[in-house]
C-alpha cells in the first residue's frame, strides 16, 4: 500500500552559466556549432595547456549563490575529479570538492501538498562540463564532440528535502525561475543547459532514518522529472513490499519506455581521487566583488510575488502566475503604472496576454500602455469586455491605438437608450414565448435577453444599460 510509504528525494542540478566563452579558455560556449569547432589546446586538454578562470562565469556563479541565499566563501578551491572517459580529454574534470564556492542556502517553493516549503541548498560549486559521446551517429563506433568541454557549470545540491516527485519538480521549476530571472542560465533541459540527477529513497511513514537511496540519472526534460522519480519510487516500494532489499546504485531513466534500469557496474564511477588542482590558485573573492554581485541581482520571484500581493492586493496564486516570468511581471507592472486598475490588469495579463504570448513565442505583442488604454475604455463604458477582447486581438495582430481600432471595427458601445430600445423591442418581439415565461416568474431569462440584445447589436450595446431597458420593458 503506497500510502504507508514516504518518499525522500534530493536533487543535484547542473546549470550552464550564460557566458560567451568557456570556463577556462576563450572558446565560444554557444550551443549547436558543428562538432569539434569550438575547441582550443586548453579545452582539448592538449599537452602543456593550462586553465585560466573566466571572470564572468565566476560573477554569475556568485550571483546564483546569493540568489539562493547561500554563504559565499571568500576562499574556495578548484579540485580535480579524476576519471577516464573518452569525452573527458584531460582525464579529469575541474570542479570544487572540499571547499566549494558557497554553502548553506535555501529556496522556498510552493509545494503541491504542503504549501510553502523550503529546500535546503547544501552546496553550490563551479565546474567545467565534459564533452559529448555520440553512440548513434556511426554504426559500431562512438563519436566524440568536444564543443561542450569546458563549458561553465554550477552544481546545486539540495538536502533530502522533497517528499514527492511532484515536489521535486516544483522545486526545479522554481529554481529555473530564479536562474532565468537573474540571467544566470537559459535553463534549457533540451539543450543540456540544465541537467538534474536525483537521489531517491523511500521509508515507512513515521520512520526518521533514511532508506537506501539510488541515484536516478538521464532525466533529460522537465516533462520527465516527475515520471522518472515516480517510476523509481514505485520500483523501490515494490521491491521492499516484496520482501527484497535495495542496492545503492545508479538508475538510468529511459523516457521511451518510461522505465529505469541499473547502470552497468562498468559505467559506475569508482574513486574520483579528488585533490586541489595545482594549476589553479585558490579562488579568492573580495568582499567588494561579492557585494557587487549582490547589487547586480534583480528582485527574485519570491520577493516579487510577496510585493505583488502586498502592493497590488492580488491573491498569492495570481501573483505567482504574474511573477513566473520576469518579462511578464515587468509588463504587468508597466500596465499598472500606465494607469490600469491592478486587479483588472492582472486578469487581462493572466488571460488574454499570456494566451497570446503562448501562441506567439512568448512575445508580448500589445504594448503595456495600449493595454492600459484598452482597460480604460472598458472601465469608462466605451467598450464591452467582449468587444475589448476583439480589439486586443486586433491590436496584437496589426497594431494601432485601441480607441481607433475599436472605432474602426465599429465596436464602440452604444449607450443611447433610444437606439437600445429599438434592439430591445426587436428581441422581445422575436422571443414571445420566453417573454411569457419571464412574466410567469422565470426571471433568470433576463440574461438570455441581454445576450440576444448583445447579439443583435453585434456587441456594441452597453450590457448594463441593455439590462436596465429590458427590465423596464418587461416590468408588469
Amino acid at each position: 500500500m503506497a500510502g504507508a510509504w514516504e518518499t525522500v528525494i534530493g536533487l543535484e542540478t547542473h546549470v550552464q552559466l550564460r557566458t560567451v566563452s568557456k570556463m577556462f579558455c576563450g572558446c565560444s560556449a554557444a550551443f549547436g556549432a558543428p562538432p569539434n569547432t569550438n575547441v582550443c589546446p586548453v579545452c582539448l586538454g592538449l599537452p602543456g595547456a593550462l586553465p585560466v578562470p573566466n571572470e564572468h562565469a565566476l560573477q554569475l556563479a556568485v550571483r546564483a549563490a546569493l540568489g539562493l541565499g547561500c554563504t559565499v566563501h571568500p576562499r574556495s578551491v578548484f579540485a580535480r575529479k579524476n576519471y577516464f572517459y573518452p569525452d573527458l580529454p584531460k582525464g579529469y574534470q575541474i570542479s570544487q570538492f572540499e571547499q566549494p564556492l558557497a554553502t548553506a542556502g535555501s529556496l522556498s517553493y510552493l509545494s503541491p501538498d504542503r504549501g510553502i516549503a523550503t529546500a535546503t541548498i547544501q552546496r553550490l560549486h563551479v565546474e567545467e562540463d565534459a564533452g559529448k559521446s555520440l553512440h548513434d551517429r556511426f554504426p559500431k563506433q562512438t563519436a566524440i564532440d568536444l564543443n561542450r568541454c569546458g563549458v561553465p557549470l554550477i552544481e546545486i545540491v539540495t538536502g533530502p528535502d522533497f517528499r514527492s516527485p511532484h515536489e521535486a519538480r516544483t522545486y526545479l521549476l522554481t529554481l529555473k525561475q530564479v536562474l532565468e530571472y537573474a540571467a544566470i542560465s537559459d535553463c534549457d533541459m533540451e539543450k543540456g543547459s540544465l541537467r538534474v540527477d536525483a537521489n531517491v529513497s523511500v521509508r515507512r511513514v513515521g520512520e526518521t532514518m533514511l532508506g537506501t537511496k539510488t541515484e536516478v540519472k538521464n532525466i533529460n526534460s522537465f516533462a520527465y522529472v516527475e515520471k522518472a522519480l515516480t517510476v523509481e519510487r514505485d520500483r523501490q516500494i515494490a521491491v521492499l513490499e516484496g520482501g527484497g532489499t535495495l542496492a545503492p546504485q545508479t538508475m538510468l531513466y529511459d523516457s521511451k519506455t518510461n522505465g529505469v534500469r541499473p547502470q552497468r557496474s562498468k559505467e559506475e564511477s569508482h574513486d574520483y581521487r579528488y585533490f586541489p588542482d595545482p594549476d589553479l590558485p585558490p579562488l579568492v573573492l573580495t568582499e567588494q566583488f561579492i557585494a557587487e554581485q549582490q547589487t547586480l541581482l534583480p528582485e527574485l520571484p519570491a520577493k516579487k510575488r510577496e510585493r505583488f500581493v502586498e502592493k497590488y492586493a492580488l491573491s498569492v496564486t495570481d501573483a505567482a502566475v504574474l511573477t513566473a516570468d520576469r518579462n511578464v511581471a515587468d509588463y504587468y507592472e508597466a500596465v499598472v503604472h500606465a494607469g490600469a486598475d491592478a486587479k483588472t490588469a492582472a486578469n487581462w495579463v493572466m488571460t488574454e496576454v499570456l494566451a497570446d504570448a503562448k501562441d506567439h513565442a512568448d512575445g508580448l505583442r500589445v504594448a503595456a500602455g495600449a493595454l492600459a488604454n484598452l482597460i480604460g475604455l472598458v472601465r469608462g463604458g466605451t467598450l464591452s469586455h467582449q468587444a475589448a477582447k476583439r480589439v486586443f486581438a486586433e491590436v496584437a495582430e496589426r497594431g494601432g491605438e485601441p480607441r481607433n481600432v475599436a472605432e474602426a471595427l465599429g465596436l464602440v458601445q452604444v449607450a443611447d437608450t433610444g437606439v437600445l430600445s429599438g434592439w430591445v423591442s426587436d428581441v422581445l418581439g422575436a422571443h414571445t414565448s420566453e417573454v411569457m415565461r419571464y412574466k410567469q416568474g422565470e426571471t433568470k431569462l433576463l440574461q438570455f435577453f441581454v445576450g440576444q440584445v448583445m447579439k443583435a447589436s453585434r456587441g456594441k450595446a452597453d450590457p448594463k444599460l441593455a439590462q436596465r431597458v429590458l427590465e423596464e420593458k418587461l416590468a408588469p
Partner: protein
Amino acid sequence: MSDPSEALASAKAAADRIVNVKRLNACLTPIKELRKSLAAQASTAHPSGVLYGMPVAVKDNICTLEFTTSCGSKILEGYRSPYDATAAAKLKAAGALIAGKTNCDEFGMGSSTEHSAYGRTLHPFDKTRVPGGSSGGSAALVAAGAVPAALGSETGGSVRQPASLCGVVGIKPTYGRVSRYGLVAFGSSLDQIGVLGRSVHDAARVLSVISGRDPKDSTCEDRDSLRLPNVPESLQGFVIGVPKEYFPQDLDAAVRRACDRAIRLLRELGAAVREVSLPHTAYAVATYYIIAPAEASSNLARYDGARYGPRFNGSEDVRALYRTTRGDGFGPEVRRRVLVGTYVLSSGYYDAYYRKAQQMRALIAQDFRNVFDRGVDLLFTPTTPTPAFKAGEKLNDPVAMYLSDIFTVTANLAGLPAISVPIGRIKGLPIGGQLIGQAFLEDEMLEAAYALERAVPAAEEA
C-alpha cells in the same frame, strides 16, 4: 650580432656542432630537419631581439611549433604541438633560434636520462656514465659546447642535478617566475622551466627573456621579466647560510672538499658565512615522492590513445584501448609513479599520504622562511651527493635514483630559486655547488653565482 648573414652562420655552426656530438644522443631532432629549420628560423628571426641568432636547445617536454614534442615517451611519439610554449615564444620573439629538442627522462621522471624511450644520453666526458636528468640532453649539449644554453625543466632538480653532473650552470627560477604554459605537466605545483648554460651569464640572459607574466598561466606571477644584475666586485654584505643537514656524516669526501673550497672562496669574496639548520630536510624526498607522483597520475591521465598520439594494438573497446595504450606507451618508471600517485590519492589513503605530505611541504617551506627571516640572504649546499654515476648503476634501484635529488627537491617543494654552479672536478668528473635564494630574489642569487663562478677553479680537482 644584428646581420641576417651572421644569424645564418650561427645557425649553421650550431647545427654542425650538434652533428658532431650526435654520439651523445642528446638531441632527438633528426639532423636534416634541424638544419632546415635552423636556416628558416635564422632568416626570419627579428634582428633587434636581445638573443638574436643565439641557438637555444629545448627539452623535449616543452611545446614548440618546430619539431615534435614527445617528452621522451613512446606515448607521444611523433606528436606535434599546434602551439608554442610561452617560454619558446618568448625566445623566438627575442631572436633566438630553437636548436632542436633534447632527450630527457620520460615526462621528466628520472635523474639519469636513462628513462627515455629514445635511448639514454651519454655523459659528454665519459660515455659509460649518465649526464644526470631528467634534462640530461640539454645539459650534455651545453657541456659538449654544441649550444651556449638550453631550456630544461625541473620538478625535483632536473635542471640543477644534470648541470652539476655535466659541469655547466643550471638555474631553477622561483615557482611562478616563468610561465608553465606549454611545459608538459609532470607535477604542476613543482614544475618550472629552467635554463642550462655554459656560464651564469648565458643561463641568466636566457632566463631573463623567458621570465615574466603570462595571462595563460594562472600560477605565473604578475611580474616584469627578471632584470640581470651586474657582476659584483665582492660579496661584502651578503650573509650565506650553510645548512648542516646538507652536509651529513656520510657525504662523499671529495664533494665535501669541493664545497669547503667554495665556501672558503665565498668568505674571501666578503660574504659572511654561517651554519644554519633546516630541520625538516630529512622528510623532503619522501614528501616529494608523494606529491609529485600524485599530481603526475592526474596530469598523465590524458594520454589514453583516444585523441592523439599512437594507439597500441587492441582497441576492441575503450577500456582495452586505455589499457594497451597506457601499458605499452609508458615506460616502467612512469608506470611506477602513476601507480604510486593513484594510490596516495585514493579514498582511505588520501589523508595518510597526500594530506600529510602537503603538511610536511608547508613545514619545509617554513624552515627556509625561518632562516631567511634571521638575516640570511642565500644558502650554499652541494647540488648532488656524487658526481656522474655509471649508466645502469641505479636503474633497478628506484630509491637510490631518487636519492640523487636529495639536495635539490627542497627548493621545488618550497618554490624557491636555486642555481648550480660548477665548483671543481672529482677524478675528472664535474661537481656543482648550489645556491638557494629567496622567492623572486633571483638577482641576488645570480650576483653571488657570478662571483663564485669567477673565483672557483672549476676545472681543477677538489
